[in-house]
């Protein structure tokens, strides 16, 4: 069922929705229309009924009057009311005639039809009037009976009226109609009261039955008035209170009280009748007022109903038309839009995207169309983008060479391609020209291009290297390890100026279709960074040399260095002490003393390998030597003292450095004397080598038995000092020049020997060289030259004594003055030490063969010696 519904075409779907709605609306409206129509017809009929009712009421009113008059007429046996009765009968007939005329009115047909029976019955009662009147005229009827007869007619008339009008669906009208009915009944009772009163006053008497009837009449009359007062609308009640009041009404009430009291009924029956009639006429006024009101109201309702009827009818038709029109419009519009979309979709699917779909409505279809348009736009955009990319790619492809030129112009590296013939490609980066200072690049064979720039061996390697680069069997990485111009120094020439450059050249294979097509070469000028690197290297080297210098100081055995420093300071101090004591201005002697000390210190510095101090002391020696030739003054000596002081300061600095080092050594203590011995041996060996080198000779220093004899610490310094002086003496004077030694059949290397031995009391040091020995004649000559001895002295001297001259102060045999000897001070130092330690010596010199010296030193009891 639902499936069949969903499958319906849109137009039918709408019909399914809308048609039942329209039907419901129309049905509802029909009910409304009908209701209003009924209201209308109801009101119209009621209006007519009231019209008829009013006519009947007129008749009733006149009959009521006639009843009272007739009652009076009969009560006094026709003495009074005769004339009045005739007049009344005329007016009764006149209203009757009016009623009948009304009935003949054409528009009452439906009402007459509806109430035929009631009206026929009423008319029959009205017909009885003539018979009743005849009986009255002929006095064949009693007053009471006549009242009953008239009342019977009136009763019927009133009931007919009630039947006629008591038929409405309007609650308000229904209530007012009931108010009228109650009022009519009350009025009828008032009218009967008038008739009874008229009768009673006419007879001046009221019997029991009539009296009862009278009270009941009044009670009922009042009850109906009460009811009227409850249900009548405010207007009617107010009208009633306004009309039915005043003297006449009060007069009626007064005479009613008289009747009720039933004492003496002496009132004039005419007066009663007139007064009552006034009251009844006024009641009739109220009745007319109310009838009139209801008639107006029913008319009003009828008119409203008509208006409503037409309003709803027109509304219905309008709704129907509008609904149908709306449905048609909407469906037509929808179907139209759908078909537009459908056609557009077909066009899109056929590939035509040039147009937009236009749906003027803003409903879902309109939005759908917008979305569709956006979608199509996106597709077109991406198509456009694709086309643009394609065009760009085409453009790039076409302009590839141009682009590469631009790229090459802006690269700082030299870049070019090599082909299989090693030719440089047509396009290369601009930097190539700058790096090689050469315009002819393109098309050149790269090996030829490099030929003037690099070494032949490098060039050979380059050619081989390029060949391997193009060899696909060779791994690129393997070949690249052997790049001979990976980093190469080239010499370029520009405007006659030759510049050295360092360049880095790198090679990369370029493949096309898995074959090596080209080699891409990149050249970068690294001159600046390499020069910088060289600078750094040099600076580093310099720093290293300085470090080595300091280290050379540190290499010296700390105990030896400490001794050296201690000794140096002590001796340098003795110079200044001597200077201060110098009262007689004997500067020559002072200078000699100073020279002696400095020379000794220089020898020590050389032996322990402390070039720094050796050089310093040598400078001082030079200064002193410069002064020796002339007469020395205090001012000159001050300059020397200044230099001595400088040396002292340097030593102080070294001492301080040493102090720190000693602290380190204390933490890692040495293994006693044997280590000290080794350090002494080491420094003596070094000293010998150094001296020999300076003298252009070679020596070999041999130690014998030195491991077995341990030098006490106190002897280490003197031992070293003596040995170094002896070594210097041997190397400078004893050992011959290599050429001499060769000619004499000696080995070129001079042999030096130091041997230690020990007895219980003495320690023996044997020093020996294989040099030329002491030259007695030269010693003599030298001693004479220096003024140490006279010819006479010499003649009385033993050979040993002459040999001992070498130990004398100021004796020097060498001609030239170097660091190592020649100042005639060295051997004197040895003698001084021996004297200091109470040692003895013996010299054995074999001419041309050897020099030997044996030193004896007393064995010290306490090892700590004489440290100060």
């Amino acid at each position, binding site marked *: 069922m639902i499936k069949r519904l969903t499958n319906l075409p849109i137009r039918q779907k709408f019909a399914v929705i809308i048609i039942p709605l329209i039907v419901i609306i129309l049905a509802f409206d029909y009910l409304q229309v009908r209701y209003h129509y009924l209201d209308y017809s109801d009101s119209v009929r009621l209006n007519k009924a009231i019209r008829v009712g009013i006519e009947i009421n007129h008749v009733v009113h006149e009959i009521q009057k006639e009843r009272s008059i007739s009652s009076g007429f009969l009560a006094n046996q026709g003495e009074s009311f005769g004339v009045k009765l005739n007049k009344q009968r005329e007016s009764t007939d006149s209203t009757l005639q009016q009623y009948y005329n009304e009935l003949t009115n054409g528009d009452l047909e439906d009402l007459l039809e509806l109430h035929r029976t009631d009206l026929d019955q009423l008319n029959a009662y009205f017909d009885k009037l003539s018979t009743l009147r005849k009986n009255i005229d002929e006095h064949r009827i009693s007053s009471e009976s006549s009242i009953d007869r008239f009342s019977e007619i009136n009763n019927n008339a009133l009931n007919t009226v009630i039947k006629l009008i008591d038929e409405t669906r309007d609650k308000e009208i229904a209530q007012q109609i009931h108010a009228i009915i109650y009022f009519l009944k009350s009025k009828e009772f008032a009218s009967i009261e008038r008739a009874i009163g008229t009768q009673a006053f006419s007879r001046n008497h009221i019997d029991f039955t009539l009296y009862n009837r009278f009270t009941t009449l009044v009670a009922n009359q009042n009850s109906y008035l009460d009811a009227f007062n409850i249900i009548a609308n405010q207007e009617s009640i107010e009208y009633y209170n306004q009309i039915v009041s005043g003297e006449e009404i009060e007069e009626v009430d007064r005479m009613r009280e008289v009747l009720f009291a039933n004492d003496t009924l002496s009132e004039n029956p005419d007066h009663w009748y007139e007064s009552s009639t006034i009251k009844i006429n006024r009641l009739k006024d109220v009745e007319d007022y109310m009838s009139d009101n209801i008639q107006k109201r029913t008319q009003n309702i009828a008119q409203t109903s008509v208006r409503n009827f037409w309003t709803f009818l027109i509304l219905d038709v309008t709704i129907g038309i509008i609904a149908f029109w709306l449905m048609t419009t909407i469906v037509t519009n929808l179907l139209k839009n759908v078909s537009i979309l459908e056609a557009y979709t077909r066009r899109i699917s056929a590939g035509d995207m040039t147009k937009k779909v236009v749906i003027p409505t803003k409903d879902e279809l309109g939005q759908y169309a917008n979305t569709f348009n956006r979608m199509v736009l996106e597709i077109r955009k991406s198509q456009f983008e694709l086309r643009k990319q394609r065009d760009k790619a085409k453009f790039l492809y076409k302009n590839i060479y141009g682009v590469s030129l631009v790229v090459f112009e802006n690269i700082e590296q030299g870049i070019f391609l090599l082909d299989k013939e090693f030719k440089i490609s047509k396009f290369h980066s601009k930097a190539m020209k700058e790096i090689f200072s050469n315009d002819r690049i393109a098309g050149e064979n790269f090996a030829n291009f490099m030929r003037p720039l690099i070494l032949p061996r490098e060039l*050979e390697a380059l050619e081989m290297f390029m060949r391997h680069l193009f060899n696909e*069997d060779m*791994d690129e990485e393997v070949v690249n390890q*052997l790049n001979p111009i990976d980093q190469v120094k080239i010499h370029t020439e520009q405007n006659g100026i030759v510049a050295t450059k360092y360049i880095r050249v790198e090679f990369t294979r370029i493949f096309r279709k898995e074959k090596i097509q080209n080699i891409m070469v990149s050249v970068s000028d690294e001159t600046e960074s390499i020069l910088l690197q060289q600078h750094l290297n040099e600076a580093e080297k310099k720093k290293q040399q300085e470090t080595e210098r300091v280290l050379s100081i540190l290499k010296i055995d700390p105990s030896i260095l400490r001794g050296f420093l201690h000794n140096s300071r002590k001796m340098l101090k003795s110079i200044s002490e001597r200077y201060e004591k110098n009262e007689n201005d004997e500067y020559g002697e002072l200078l000699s003393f100073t020279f002696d000390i400095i020379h000794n210190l220089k020898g020590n510095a050389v032996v322990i390998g402390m070039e720094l101090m050796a050089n310093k002391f040598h400078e001082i020696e030079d200064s002193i030597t410069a002064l020796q030739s002339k007469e020395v003054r205090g001012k000159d000596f001050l300059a020397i003292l200044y230099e001595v002081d400088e040396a002292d300061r340097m030593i102080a600095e070294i001492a301080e450095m040493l102090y720190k080092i000693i602290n380190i050594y204390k933490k890692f203590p040495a293994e006693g004397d044997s280590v000290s011995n080794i350090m002494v041996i080491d420094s003596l060996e070094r000293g010998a080598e150094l001296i020999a080198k300076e003298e252009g000779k070679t020596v070999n220093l041999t130690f014998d038995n030195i491991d077995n004899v341990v030098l006490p610490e106190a002897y280490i310094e003197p031992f070293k000092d003596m040995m170094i002086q002896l070594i210097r003496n041997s190397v400078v004077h004893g050992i011959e020049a290599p050429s001499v030694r060769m000619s004499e059949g000696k080995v070129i290397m001079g042999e030096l020997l130091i041997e230690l031995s020990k007895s219980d009391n003495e320690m023996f040091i044997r020093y020996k060289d294989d040099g030329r020995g002491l030259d007695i004649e030269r010693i003599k000559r030298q001693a004479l030259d220096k003024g140490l001895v006279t010819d006479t002295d010499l003649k009385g001297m033993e050979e040993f004594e002459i040999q001992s001259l070498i130990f004398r102060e100021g004796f020097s045999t060498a001609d030239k003055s170097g660091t190592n000897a020649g100042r005639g001070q060295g051997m004197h130092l040895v003698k001084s030490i021996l004297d200091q330690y109470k040692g003895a010596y013996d010299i054995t010199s074999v001419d041309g063969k050897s020099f030997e010296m044996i030193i004896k030193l007393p064995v010290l009891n306490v090892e700590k010696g004489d440290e100060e």
Partner: protein
Amino acid sequence: MKKKLLIVDDSSVMRRTIEKNLADYDLEIIGQAANGVEAVQMVMDKRPDVVTLDITMPEMDGIACLEEIMKINPETKVMIITALADKLTGLIALDKGARGFMYKPVNADDLARSFDKLLKRDGE
């Protein structure tokens, strides 16, 4: 089948280093030679697939040795491992038929990479 490897170097330390670093490879070390003459003899006797060859060796240097090996079996994959900085010699070795080249001192990574290449290209 395992490839047969011959290690040629005058330094026993170097030979051990190479041997140790190639332990993970699917290679059978058929021998070690301390000089070119020994090497040529072993190539002749044992026909190795792969040879690591030093250039500076006593008796017969690496280049001469390489020439001999190529005469015996041109298919031998020779990997030059040398401390010699001269690139021309290296290039000559390639000319003579060496397939790999490394500088001493070798580290495990470089050796592994070079052997990967040498063996892979052999496999192709």
